[in-house]
C-alpha cells in the first residue's frame, strides 16, 4: 500500500462519557477508495465526523489522525477552517437537505471558494468547471436545487465538495437515498474522480455490494471498533471474521426456489388507471396475485408504485379499471369487512406508530374494521408471539423497541384481522442487513403457516429476488414486464429491466463461498 494520506491510529471517542469508538486504526491512501462498512450505530459516521472536526459537543477523543504530520484530533476550530474544504471535504446521504433551497447552485459551489478568498468572477468560473466535471454540462449556475432531480442534486453536492480540489473526499452513504440507476451513475462519477484526480475517497456505506464494486480497501466496523480490514477482494474471499461472514450472508439472501402456487387469484387489478389532473400516475395496470404467492413490484421513485399501492388499499379512487379482492369489488368500493382482508406494513419503523399509544392499542387498531372481538387482548398477544415478540411487550411504547422489533410490531398489527393479502411497502428497506434477513425469514415462515399472499413493493432487487415468486416491473405508471422471478433476473426481456438489473451493485459471485450463493 502507498503512503497513506490520512492515518488514523488508536482513535477512541467518548460522547458524554459513553464510549462510541474504540481503538480505530484506518489508513486512507491517495488515489484509492477506502470502504467503511457496518450497520447503523457501528460508528462509521462518527469516524468521518472526527476526520472533519465536526464531532458533537461533549466529545472526547484519544489517539491520532495524521494528515501531513499534523494530528487532526487536536486542531483548534480556527485551524480546521483551513483543512475543511481545502484538504478534506464531505458529501452526505440526503441530497434534498444538503443544499440550501433559497440559493442558486452556482453560488453554493462558489461559496467555499469565496470563503477562501477567490474573486467573484474566478469563483464562478471554477464553479462552472466543477459542474462540468460532475457531468452537469447542460445545467446553468443560476438553477435552484428544486429545479433538479435527486441525482443531479447529489452531483451538485459533489461539485461543492471538490470545489477546492480536496485531497480526501468523505462520502457518507452517498447513494442510499437514490434509485439504483442513479446510484450507478453517481458511483461511476466518484470512481472517475479518484482515478483521474488522484483523490482519496472514504466511502461509508451499509451496502456490501457498493463496497465490493468500488473499494480498493475495506474496513468492517462493529460497535465502534474495526473488526477486520484489508484489500477488498481478499477480505471478501477470506470470510475470516464471523461478523463479516454474517454481514455477507445476510446481504446476499439466496434467491427463492421456484415453487408451485395455487392458481386462485386473491387480488386482481384490471386496467387500473389513476390520474392527477393531466398527469397519469398509474396507467392501465393489470396483474393478479394468487393465494400463497409472493408478488414483487419493482420500480424507481416516481414510477407510480406508491399510488398503485394506495389505490389497492382503497385509500385513493381510480379513474379507470377494476380492482377485485377475494372475488369482491376492491379499492374504495370495499366494505369494512373486505378491508380487513387486506393489510399493509410500511417502510419507516419510526413513523409507523403513534408515539403516545402502547403496543396493545397499536396492534388492535385494525379491529376498528371488524368490531372489537371479546378476545382482542389474547389475539393481540398471539399476534405478538407469532412475530417473535413477548406478550409482556403489550404495555410498552414504540420508542422502547429497536427498528427491527418495530417492523415486527407493524407485522403483528397487519396480521391481527387475519387478512388474506399483506402489502409490504418497502417493509424491510430501512433495516440493517442482518435484521432484514430475520424479518424476511419471519415473513416467509408466516406465509407458509398462514397461507398469506404478499404484494412486496421494493426498490431493492436483492430483496425481491429473495422473497418473491413472480415480479412486476413498473416504469412511468405502466407495468413494462412481469414474469417468474428467475426469468426477470436471468433473462430480462425489456431494456428497462435489463438496465435495472445491471445497475444494482452486486458482490461478484466468485468472491462468495458456496454457502452464500446457494441456500
Amino acid at each position, binding site marked *: 500500500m502507498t503512503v497513506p494520506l490520512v492515518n488514523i491510529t488508536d482513535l477512541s471517542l467518548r460522547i458524554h462519557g459513553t464510549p462510541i469508538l474504540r481503538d480505530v486504526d484506518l489508513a486512507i491512501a491517495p488515489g484509492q477508495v477506502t470502504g467503511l462498512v457496518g450497520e447503523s450505530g457501528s460508528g462509521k459516521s462518527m469516524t468521518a465526523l472526527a476526520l472533519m472536526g465536526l464531532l*458533537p*459537543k*461533549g466529545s472526547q477523543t484519544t489517539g491520532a489522525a495524521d494528515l501531513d504530520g499534523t494530528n487532526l484530533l487536536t486542531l483548534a476550530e480556527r485551524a480546521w477552517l483551513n483543512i475543511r474544504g481545502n484538504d478534506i471535504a464531505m458529501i452526505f446521504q440526503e441530497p434534498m437537505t444538503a443544499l440550501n433551497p433559497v440559493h442558486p447552485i452556482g453560488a453554493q459551489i462558489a461559496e467555499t471558494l469565496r470563503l477562501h478568498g477567490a474573486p467573484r468572477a474566478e469563483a464562478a468560473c471554477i464553479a462552472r468547471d466543477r459542474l462540468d466535471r460532475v457531468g452537469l454540462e447542460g445545467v446553468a449556475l443560476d438553477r435552484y436545487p428544486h429545479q433538479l432531480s435527486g441525482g443531479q442534486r447529489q452531483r451538485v453536492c459533489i461539485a461543492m465538495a471538490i470545489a477546492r480540489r480536496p485531497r480526501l473526499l468523505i462520502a457518507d452513504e452517498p447513494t442510499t437515498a437514490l434509485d439504483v440507476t442513479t446510484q450507478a451513475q453517481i458511483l461511476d462519477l466518484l470512481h472517475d474522480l479518484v482515478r483521474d484526480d488522484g483523490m482519496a475517497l472514504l466511502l461509508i456505506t451499509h451496502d456490501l455490494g457498493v463496497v465490493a464494486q468500488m473499494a480498493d480497501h475495506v474496513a468492517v466496523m462493529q460497535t465502534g471498533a474495526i473488526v477486520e480490514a484489508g484489500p477488498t477482494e481478499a477480505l471478501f474471499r477470506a470470510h475470516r471474521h464471523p461478523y463479516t461472514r454474517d454481514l455477507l450472508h445476510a446481504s446476499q439472501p439466496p434467491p427463492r426456489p421456484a415453487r408451485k402456487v395455487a392458481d386462485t387469484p386473491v387480488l386482481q387489478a384490471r386496467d387500473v388507471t389513476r390520474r392527477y389532473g393531466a398527469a397519469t400516475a398509474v396507467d392501465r395496470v393489470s396483474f393478479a396475485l394468487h393465494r400463497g404467492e409472493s408478488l414483487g413490484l419493482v420500480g424507481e421513485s416516481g414510477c407510480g408504485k406508491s399510488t398503485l399501492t394506495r389505490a389497492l*388499499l382503497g*385509500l385513493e379512487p381510480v379513474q379507470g379499471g377494476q380492482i377485485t379482492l377475494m372475488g369482491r369489488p376492491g379499492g374504495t368500493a370495499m366494505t*369494512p369487512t373486505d*378491508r380487513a382482508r387486506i*393489510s*399493509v406494513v*410500511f*417502510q*419507516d419503523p419510526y*413513523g*409507523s*406508530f*403513534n*408515539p*403516545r399509544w402502547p403496543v396493545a392499542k397499536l396492534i388492535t*387498531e*385494525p*379491529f*376498528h*374494521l371488524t368490531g372489537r372481538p371479546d378476545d382482542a387482548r389474547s389475539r393481540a398477544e398471539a399476534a405478538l408471539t407469532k412475530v417473535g415478540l413477548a406478550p409482556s411487550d403489550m404495555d410498552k411504547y414504540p420508542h422502547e423497541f429497536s427498528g427491527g422489533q418495530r417492523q415486527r410490531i*407493524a407485522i403483528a*398489527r397487519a396480521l391481527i384481522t387475519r387478512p388474506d393479502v399483506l402489502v409490504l411497502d418497502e417493509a424491510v428497506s430501512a433495516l440493517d442487513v442482518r435484521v432484514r434477513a430475520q424479518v424476511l425469514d419471519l415473513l416467509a415462515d408466516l406465509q407458509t403457516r398462514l397461507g398469506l399472499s404478499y404484494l412486496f413493493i421494493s426498490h431493492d432487487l436483492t430483496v425481491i429476488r429473495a422473497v418473491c415468486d413472480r415480479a412486476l416491473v413498473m416504469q412511468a405508471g405502466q407495468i413494462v414486464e412481469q414474469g417468474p422471478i428467475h426469468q426477470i433476473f436471468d433473462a430480462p426481456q425489456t431494456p428497462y429491466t435489463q438496465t435495472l438489473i445491471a445497475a444494482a451493485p452486486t458482490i461478484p459471485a466468485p468472491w462468495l463461498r458456496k454457502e452464500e450463493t446457494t441456500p
Partner: protein
Amino acid sequence: MKGALLIGSVLTTLFVAAALVSLIWLPHDIARVDIGARLMPASLAHPLGTDHFGRDLLSMLMAGARTSIAVALVAVGIGLFAGVPLGLWAAANRGTWLDEVIMRGNDVIFAFPSLVIAILITAVFGPSALNAILAIGIFNIPVFARVARGGALPLWTLDYVMAARVAGKGKVLISAQHILPNITNLLIVQATIQFSLGILAEAALSYVGLGAQPPTASWGRMLSDAQTMIYTEPHLTVLPGLAIVLMVLGLNLLGDGLRDQLDPRLRRVRL
C-alpha cells in the same frame, strides 16, 4: 433554559395563588368606600396602603388578578374549543374548498385590528367583563386554528395515520386519536402565550373603561383611576402596572420554558 421555566412558573403560581385566595378571603372588603381612610401609607392593616377611596391596595391587586386571570382563561378557552377543531378539520380536508373556507375565514378575522373590534363590541353591547371575554376570545380562534392546522399537516403524511386509514378510520376519529394528542405540546405553548396576551387585552379594555365595571377590581382600571395622581401618589399607578408586567412576563417565560421542555428537537440541540 431551565431558568426561564422556573421564574415563569414561580411568577405565574404567585398570581394564580393570589387570585384563588381572593375567591374566599381578602384582607379588606374592596366594595366599601372609606373616604376617612383614603391615601393611607403602608401600615400593618394595609400592607400596601389605600387608594383615593380608602380601599386596601393589596386586596384590590388580589381581586384584580382574579379578574384578569378569569377573563384571559375563558378567552383562551373559547379560542381552544372553537379554533382547534376548526384547524384540525381544515388539516383533515387539506387542499379542498373546506380548508380554503376555514383558513380564509381566519384571515378575515386576522385582518381586523383586534383591540378596535373589542372596543366596538363592548361599545355596542355595553362594557362588561363578559363582553371583554367574548371580544378577546373571538380573536383567539384563528390563532389556535392556525397552530392546530400547521401542527396537524405534517402528521397527516405519517405512516401511522396511513395505517389508521387502512384500518378504516375516518377523518374525525384520526384527528381525535392520532393528530390531537400529538399536537398538544404546540397548543399548550400557544395557550400560555395567548393567556398573557389576554391579560394585556383585558387591562387595556379596562383602562379605557370598556372592561370589568366597578365594583369588580381590575388592574387596568386601577391604572386609569390613579393616573391623575401619578406625581403625588406614584405607587397607586406603579403597583398595578408592575402586576401586569410581572404576570405577562411570567406567562411568557413559562411559555418559552414549556416549549423548550416539550419540543424534543429543541431539547436535543441543547444537549
